[in-house]
């Protein structure tokens, strides 16, 4: 019951945040220099004064700002995020069409990063001054400092030209389309490089974090107790240490979700992955504001969802929170 009330509170808060994002979107569009009607008129190749006035009336731009805001919110509530002037399609459809590819890329990278990062951290924490430990430090520094789009381009160069063993563009082979299992295998092959690029950044962060936390946890009294009881080292690590070490990792994964998404945008642009990143790139290039603002809204929505999920996972792995102590 406590948990339900808590989640309900979170959802109300989420709704308020999303409303605020919409109001921000609206304000930004209106603060931006340039008249949208003139832009549309320009795209049409020039327009007379009457046509401009008609456009103004059509988009409701002749009404007060407050009325316009209310119309905007009302439209969004009905799933209408506007019309893309570049793609000539409702924005919502554009986004929903591309969302799965982005989620596919983002989650496969996230899972790889958490698994590999945690493992590297845990193993290197066993010998804080060992070779692997120094390796993790170097990797985390390099992963932090390398611009993600550059890492992507370097991998593209390596596997697209020097040693061409992996596809470097798109999500599937369009020349010889495959079906069934072969198709899945093809998509998986196309996923390797983008996913690796995106995961590297996060592997760098998580391995460093996991290493520091693990060193901390391993020096705790309950670990000494567990060892003193004569438990095998594997049990000590897996049952006693890992769970406590995971809590800060879960926090960071939740906090970083926005960065994961932004990273996916850059990586998709490098590897022509047909997700939201490509959409963002095109809408920037064409100054397609409705699409861009909707992408910002949807990314905020995903970050909020990630935060709520993190909060729930947190409660599942940390009994202190579950008991309502915090």
């Amino acid at each position, binding site marked *: 019951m406590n948990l339900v009330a808590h989640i309900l509170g979170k959802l109300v808060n989420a709704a308020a*945040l999303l409303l*605020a*994002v919409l109001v921000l979107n609206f304000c*930004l*569009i209106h*603060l*931006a*220099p340039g008249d949208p009607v003139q832009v549309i008129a320009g795209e049409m190749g020039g327009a007379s004064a009457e046509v401009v006035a008609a456009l103004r009336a059509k988009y409701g731009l002749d009404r007060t700002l407050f009325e316009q805001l209310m119309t905007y919110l009302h439209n969004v509530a009905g799933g209408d995020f506007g019309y893309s002037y570049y793609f000539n399609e409702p924005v919502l459809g554009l986004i929903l069409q591309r969302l799965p590819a982005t989620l596919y890329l983002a989650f496969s990278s996230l899972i790889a990063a958490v698994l590999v990062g945690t493992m590297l951290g845990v193993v290197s924490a066993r010998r804080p001054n060992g070779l692997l430990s120094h390796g993790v430090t170097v990797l985390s*520094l*390099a992963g*932090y*400092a*390398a*611009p*993600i*789009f*550059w890492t992507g*381009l*370097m991998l*593209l*160069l390596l596997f*697209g*030209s020097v040693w061409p063993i992996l596809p470097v563009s798109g999500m599937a082979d369009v020349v010889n389309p495959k079906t069934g299992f072969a198709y899945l295998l093809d998509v998986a092959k196309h996923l390797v490089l983008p996913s690796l690029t995106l995961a590297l950044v996060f592997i760098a962060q998580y391995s460093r974090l996991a290493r*520091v936390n693990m*060193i901390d946890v391993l020096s705790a009294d309950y670990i000494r107790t567990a060892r003193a009881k004569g438990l095998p080292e594997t049990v000590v690590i897996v049952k006693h240490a890992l769970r406590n070490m995971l809590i800060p990792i879960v926090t960071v994964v939740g*906090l970083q979700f*926005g*960065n994961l*998404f*932004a990273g996916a*945008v*850059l990586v998709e*642009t*490098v590897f022509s992955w047909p997700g939201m990143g490509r959409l*963002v*790139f095109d809408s*920037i*290039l064409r*100054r397609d*504001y409705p699409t*861009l*603002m909707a*992408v*910002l809204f949807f*990314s*905020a929505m995903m*970050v*909020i969802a990630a*935060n709520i999920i993190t909060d729930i996972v947190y409660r599942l792995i940390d009994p202190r929170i579950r008991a309502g102590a915090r």
Partner: protein
Amino acid sequence: MSTLDPSLIVAAAPAALPAAKAASPTKAAFRQFLRSPSGVAGAAMLLVLVLGTLFGPLVYPVDPLDIAGLPFTPPSADALLGTDYLGRDILAGLIHGGRATLMVGAVAALITISIGVTVGALSGFFGGWIDSALVKIAEFFQVLPPLLFAMVLVTLFGQKLTTITLAIGAVSWTAAARLTRAEFMRLRDLDFIKASRAAGAGNAHLILRVVLPNALPPIIVSATLAIGVAILFEGGLSFLGLGDPNTMSWGLMIGQNRNYVLDAWWAVTFPGAAIFLAVLAISLVGDGVNDAVNPRLRRR
């Protein structure tokens, strides 16, 4: 001695002491920094990069926007690091572009830290409804992925270096705010703060002269790292075509040449390596500073 001079007690607060005492922890921290090999290595790398961008044009006077040779000339005696898709000299681009990239990084980080410290300080110092309101605002900003938000801002408000710098500065201040707020909340109720307050020190004096100096060590570290993040952001924006087309920068070089990566590897590899080295140097310096100012964490 009938009345106590309030200024005496205010001055007795450890951080409010002027140079005589403040200099020694700074010196100690500096000495500690010099003992960290990676920190010194980072500082040296950074110095080379900064001097290179400042004095490079004197040694290598080639205009980065001029056509210097045939497009896609590989690195050779004519063009040491090759030319790009328009035939512009890559080395000249690196030298001139570094100035814009490093400048954007430094100024944007300054903006980030200024906003973050102001919000965090007010929030942590006053608590109550001011804190609640500012935490809500910070929560709102945390929901927007910083790079995407910066992209939207630059797209809407124009691709000029100032807009880009302001946009980067405006989107990623929440981490600094959280950090400052925590420090201020920790320090707010300590005895020396109470003593200053009892002696009649006003809020502005307490915040700026008493609490802030004591909260500085972690803020300095986060400011250092913010420069690196800002440089990566500038690169990301330019890569997506949102750089200032009239100012050469490392990110712009990668963004403009990325479609030709298979024809001319040098045109993207070198500018990217420059960004990598700059951010690496800055984070090494950040680690060194962290070790120097946070003695408790030194063993990590």
